[in-house]
């Protein structure tokens, strides 16, 4: 099992989300973050005074994946989040020691496999509505 953390452009989130669902990854936590990854700082003016926007808005996605899902997840993010410009983000892959599903106490692979994965995917891609 791996913990995959991806930091992507907020404007690419809809595509990234769709690509991940298409790859069968449904367990995702996202958060709004600010960060700096080597982009040039942005200078703007507010009421005639300089404002330096050094940190950019990003979205961070965190996914716990069983081994067969690791590569498809990475591929999905790469294909959907890339614009080719500086600031596309990073993917971090870390080993994961244990996962426990709180509701049932299931552990590891059982815990990271969504019960309703199929249904969630179809809905996300604009298919069946409940």
């Amino acid at each position, binding site marked *: 099992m791996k913990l995959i953390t991806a930091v992507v452009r907020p404007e690419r989130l809809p595509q990234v989300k769709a690509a991940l669902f298409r790859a069968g990854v449904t367990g995702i936590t996202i958060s709004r973050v*600010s960060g700096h990854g080597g982009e040039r*700082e942005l200078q*703007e*003016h*507010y*009421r*005639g*005074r*300089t*404002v*330096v*926007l*050094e*940190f950019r808005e990003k979205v961070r996605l965190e996914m716990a994946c069983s081994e067969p899902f690791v590569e498809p997840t990475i591929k999905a993010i790469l294909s959907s989040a890339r614009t080719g410009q500086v600031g596309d983000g990073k993917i971090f892959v870390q080993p994961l020691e244990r996962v426990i599903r709180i509701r049932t106490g299931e552990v590891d692979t059982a815990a990271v496999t969504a019960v309703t994965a199929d249904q969630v995917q179809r809905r996300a891609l604009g298919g069946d509505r409940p």
Partner: protein
Amino acid sequence: MTRPGFSRSVGLGLLLTLAGPLTLVAQGVPTAPAALATDSLVTAANTAAAANTVAINFVWTLVTGFLVMFMQAGFAMVETGFTRAKNAAHTFAMNFMVYGIGMLAYWAVGFALQAGGLGPMATLGGFDKLSHELSVGIAGHTWGLFGTTGFFLTGVAYAAPVFTYFLFQMVFMDTAATIPTGAMAERWKFSAFVVFSVFIGAVIYPLFANWTWGGGWLSQLGTNLGLGHGHVDFAGSSVVHMTGGVIALVGAALIGPRRGKYSADGTPNAIPGHNIPMALVGTFILCFGWFGFNSGSTLAGSDLRIGVIATNTMLAGAAGSVGAMIFLWIKYGKPDPSMMANGALAGLVAITAPCAFVTAPSAVLIGGVAGVLVCIAVFFIDGKLRIDDPVGAISVHGVNGLWGILSLGLLADGTYGDGWNGVPGAVRGLFYGDPGQFVAQLIGGVTNFVAVGAMAYGAYKLTEVLVGGHRVSAEVEELGLDLPEVGALAYPDAPELASAVILSETAPHLGAAHLEPEPEAV
């Protein structure tokens, strides 16, 4: 607004105009047996027309007053949008409470000082019991200082025309009183704000208003010294806006800049407001309310000049926003929304005095100049004077209030205002042949700056003694004034405040104070 002798003659003229068609109809009645019956019909028609005219004026004055009242919401949104999220409840609460605090002070004392010697209210039925002005005699002329009837709206003041006039004047006073809250935002103790606002509503505003609108000495410059029509301010560029701007200037200078506004070497830093859309919606509300502000100042729906006034008002506001946008675009490569808003308001402030007296091209010129002027003033006050005015109140209201009355002295074209302040003939500016009018406007501006400035200084110092200082502690300012001063966060669910996240902690030209991340609230 208040010019004994003028409105009466206009009212009478309109009354005859309105009565004209009715007279014809009455005369055309074929079965009228004798001239006597026709005469009584004419009399009845005239009486009805006169009563209707007064009723129209009452309704107009009240409804436009309601519009001006809603400008309080506009000010609250502009000021809160241009300040930081951690102070939003405090900033909004000041704007909310100045309505009630200012009103009660004005009801108890201020209105009597302003309007106690008003004389006949020509457009509102001719009520003439507010007739006691304390005056002094200098060089063979009498000069009005302040009125002395109408305290608490009791006694002779308990009459519908007076209450109507009070409502309209009260919302004007509150507009002036809410201007300093923007310039002094994000660091002003709530208790000090409350006491200071009482002084504005009870004394500072009413005195200058009396001198210009209540029959006081500035309005007598024409009859006493032959300077045009005396100081003419149609709807309050000086009486309302410059007064508010000068009080804001004194307050902001004395209370000092916000922490982090200036680096150790004196360089000014940007402290971005937290909600630009809120500020822009507030600006639109003000633009809307301004129709009441200016066109209502005829105190007469029967004065058809309201069409010119309303249109000049919207033209100048538009020209102000365009002027500011173009200026900023050229100077910084991008138009700045916060300065567009200031530009629109600057145009509106400037046209407030001359709106009834100028042509449409003049209105656009006045507004356009105001839009550029407000940008230059903001940079000058912020960068050279080092007075921290988070919302640009001094530049918008003070500087452009002055520009407004001066522009009247330059561009009034002589098509309106016959009999204004008791001086025969229409109001003309310097470019239309009356240099004396410009001198009267200059005297009005200088008087406002000196007298209102001095009174504001006194009120500030007195408030300081009464409540133990104006400024919150450095810790409170860092934390945000919401919890320490008013006990409620504006946005309790906000995970963190944007300003702490986007501003670099390492950017060398930014002061350290406002770069520290927000301390964990509660």
